[in-house]
């Protein structure tokens, strides 16, 4: 059993953990919940030797232990997947899974690495998650969701007694989540103690035996999942009762409107194979599809982030060839990538600088966003998106994951776009903020923005979008509108007999 007793951790003015007591019991899945910035990741980092607590102790089987580094924790059988996936981008999947514990030959033979064993072990670890993947591929060529699964596979590769997963499902689809959970249930049966952090209520009730809630660095309570009603859990997290998530997008009278953005026959080798898409001003269109169906690739192609081989893109009725993100921005497009760490944050720059980069790029190098203007803009965006940060001059890397996500969304709102391309905009943000983002999308839509919305959460798509385009095998295959835009209809359309069954 791994336990925290009276853990305290302070970052400058922020008290991230305040006398937290927590037990991770063998044979049990503990769901760790809390709003963005509540201290979940900090608690995990203290338990795994990444942070040193200022006060309090960590106990293993009743004996206090000192963790000086993540290695110490691993040696004690604690295996962790952190919130931001840390893999080595230019190494292969197999190398990443076995990194630091490669099977070696006898030292008499030079202690060289047994590469065949490495690959076998990697395959076995992936198979546990039901993932068939060429383990010789470079990690940087994989989509984010697969990278997340590889990181989990790496954690499963060691003989752990405690497994800690910080938002493991944030970019996974239903199927992957289900497979992950059945693996976790099996491991629980083998007597592992497991911690799962998630912002999804459904998921926590599906997997957790016990739920612990953090708020502002304090443990507000822990209870058996079966005896904790949802409403009470939510109230514990936010400290007040909140209304259930945003109302559904009013599928108002369908008057014909001019398309703000339309794409025909988008093709790009290995990524897209014929995608058609229209979105009108004042409309939100969802893109639904399985992992690898081409959702992110479509947005990237529209924004000029990746060149297309074929296809036509029209913005406001005029045809354009969009060759770079800069060109797309001049046409009023904005694109929020799903990969926060790789494509989004400028880690050691301030929240303020992170907020103004896109606006500044749009204005050009000579018309600098002045100090005072930047400060006012930052204050306004921080307040309106309720970003939790000690100040606007704090480096963004010091914010919690969900708050970083809000900053990136705000970065694009600052450019006053006409078309908003959102790839998993609510990834890693808490339930209250999720409702806020959905409400924000709705109000932007009402103001006449065109929104293209990608989410692996079908409920969210249904709530935000009046129309949904279904992608399968990198091709647009169907459209749902009106009453058909509901989770179960989408699920049916998305999963309909996959021709060829190519999965990536």
């Amino acid at each position: 059993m791994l336990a925290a007793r009276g853990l305290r951790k302070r970052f400058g003015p922020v008290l991230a953990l305040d006398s937290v007591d927590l037990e991770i019991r063998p044979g049990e899945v503990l769901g760790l919940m809390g709003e963005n910035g509540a201290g979940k990741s900090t608690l995990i980092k203290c338990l795994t030797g990444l942070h040193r607590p200022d006060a309090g102790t960590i106990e293993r089987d009743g004996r206090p232990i000192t963790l000086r580094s993540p290695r110490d924790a691993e040696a004690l059988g604690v295996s962790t997947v952190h919130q931001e996936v840390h893999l080595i981008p230019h190494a292969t999947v197999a190398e990443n899974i076995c990194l630091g514990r490669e099977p070696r030959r006898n030292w008499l033979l030079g202690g060289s690495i047994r590469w065949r064993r490495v690959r076998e072990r990697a395959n076995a670890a992936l198979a546990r998650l039901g993932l068939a993947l060429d383990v010789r591929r470079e990690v940087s060529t994989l989509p984010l969701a697969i990278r997340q699964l590889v990181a989990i596979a790496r954690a499963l590769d060691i003989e752990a007694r405690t497994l800690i997963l910080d938002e493991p499902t944030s970019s996974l689809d239903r199927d992957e989540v289900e497979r992950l959970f059945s693996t976790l249930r099996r491991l629980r049966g083998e007597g592992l103690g497991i911690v799962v952090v998630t912002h999804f209520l459904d998921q926590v009730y599906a997997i957790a035996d016990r739920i612990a809630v953090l708020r502002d660095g304090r443990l507000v309570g822990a209870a058996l999942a079966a005896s904790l009603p949802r409403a009470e859990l939510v109230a514990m997290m936010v400290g007040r009762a909140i209304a259930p998530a945003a109302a559904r997008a009013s599928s108002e009278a369908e008057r014909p409107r001019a398309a703000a953005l339309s794409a025909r026959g988008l093709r790009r080798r290995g990524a897209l194979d014929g995608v058609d898409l229209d979105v009108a001003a004042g409309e939100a269109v969802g893109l639904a599809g399985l992992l690898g169906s081409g959702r992110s690739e479509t947005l990237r192609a529209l924004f000029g982030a990746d060149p297309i081989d074929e296809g036509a893109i029209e913005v406001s009725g005029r045809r354009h060839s969009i060759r770079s993100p800069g060109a797309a921005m001049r046409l009023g497009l904005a694109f929020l990538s799903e990969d926060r760490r790789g494509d989004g944050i400028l880690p050691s720059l301030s929240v303020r600088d992170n907020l103004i980069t896109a606006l500044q790029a749009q204005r050009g190098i000579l018309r600098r966003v002045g100090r005072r203007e930047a400060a006012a803009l930052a204050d306004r965006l921080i307040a309106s998106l309720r970003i939790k940060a000690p100040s606007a001059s704090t480096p963004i890397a010091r914010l919690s994951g969900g708050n970083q996500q809000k900053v990136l969304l705000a970065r694009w709102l600052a450019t006053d776009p006409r078309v908003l391309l959102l790839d998993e905009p609510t990834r890693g943000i808490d339930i209250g903020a999720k409702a806020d983002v959905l409400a924000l999308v709705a109000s932007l839509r009402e103001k006449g923005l065109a929104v293209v919305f990608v989410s692996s959460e079908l409920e969210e798509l249904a709530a935000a979008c009046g129309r949904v385009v279904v992608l399968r095998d990198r091709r647009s295959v169907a459209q749902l509108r009106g009453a058909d835009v509901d989770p179960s209809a989408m699920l049916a359309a998305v999963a309909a007999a996959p021709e060829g069954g190519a999965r990536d």
Partner: protein
Amino acid sequence: MTDAASDPRGMARVLRAPATWALVALAALLVAGAVGSPGFLSVEMRDGRLYGTPIDILNHGSKVAIVAIGMTLVIATRGVDLSVGAVVAIASAIVATLVSQKGVAWPIAMAGALGAALLAGLWNGSLVTFLRLQPIVATLVLMVAGRGIAQLITDGQIVTVRDPAVAFLGNASLLLLPATVSALAVISALAWLGTRRTAFGLFLEAVGENERAARLSGIPVRPVLLVAYAACGLCAGVAGLIDCAYIRAADANNAGQLLELDAILAVVLGGTALTGGRFSLLGSVIGAMLMQTLTKVLYVFDVSADIAPAPKAAIVLAVCLLQSPTFRAACSRHLESARARLRPGTEARP
């Protein structure tokens, strides 16, 4: 930073500011110098010009400081320019040969030298941006080849310069100060205006922090990189003119020898990380002056040139350690627990 004083955590911010520790070390060295030699800090006015050890330090530190300013821009993009020493040699070779052997007027000769330096920078920048070579490798090419080019220009000779206009930068004074110091002031001002009054500074930092994110935010990554390397080349060109003026000759073999390492060291001492991102121009200038002061102080204390590198290395290590947040956190942890031991019975923190 007007609120630094009123902010209760202003002190913490000062400790974190990039140039702080170089400045502290500089002050400590100046005090040490003054203790070792009473006249160390005195400055006097003669014939309309200031004299004294501090002025000497500024004068001799200027060349490295100017190169370090250009280097700072490149390092901010997570690059490095190893060719600056060779570019110094090229620029000084061009100006000397044009003026002394080809009889070209000095303004044209200087413009020619600076033009060549600019081209050298653009060459480096193109290798990095268009061929995507690693900066170390890309600039290594010119570092090695550049000296050969300079030799070709001077025909392997040391070309002496008699033209007073070219030698002006070396010994004349301008506005009370040696001309090199004035040149440093002008270049610092231009660099500051160019990076902080426009968005160029933010773009440099964004590219150095996360190039993919910078591109997706619409920042013109390639032009930014090109301009950074070009500006670095240009700074090296100016340093070449100073070098030539100072020794009144172009020595293709020795001009700017090891200057790239001095410049990189100045940048690092000034608090700009080699991993790119946030940079401090002022810090780099202070870093350059810190090293020059150290040389002078060691001289005051009669440290022989053979063992001088050892105390130098010690100071560099100390400043770099103090800049590291990990090291400072470890220090304050030890202080904290020592304090707790001194007061038994009371809690470590209220």
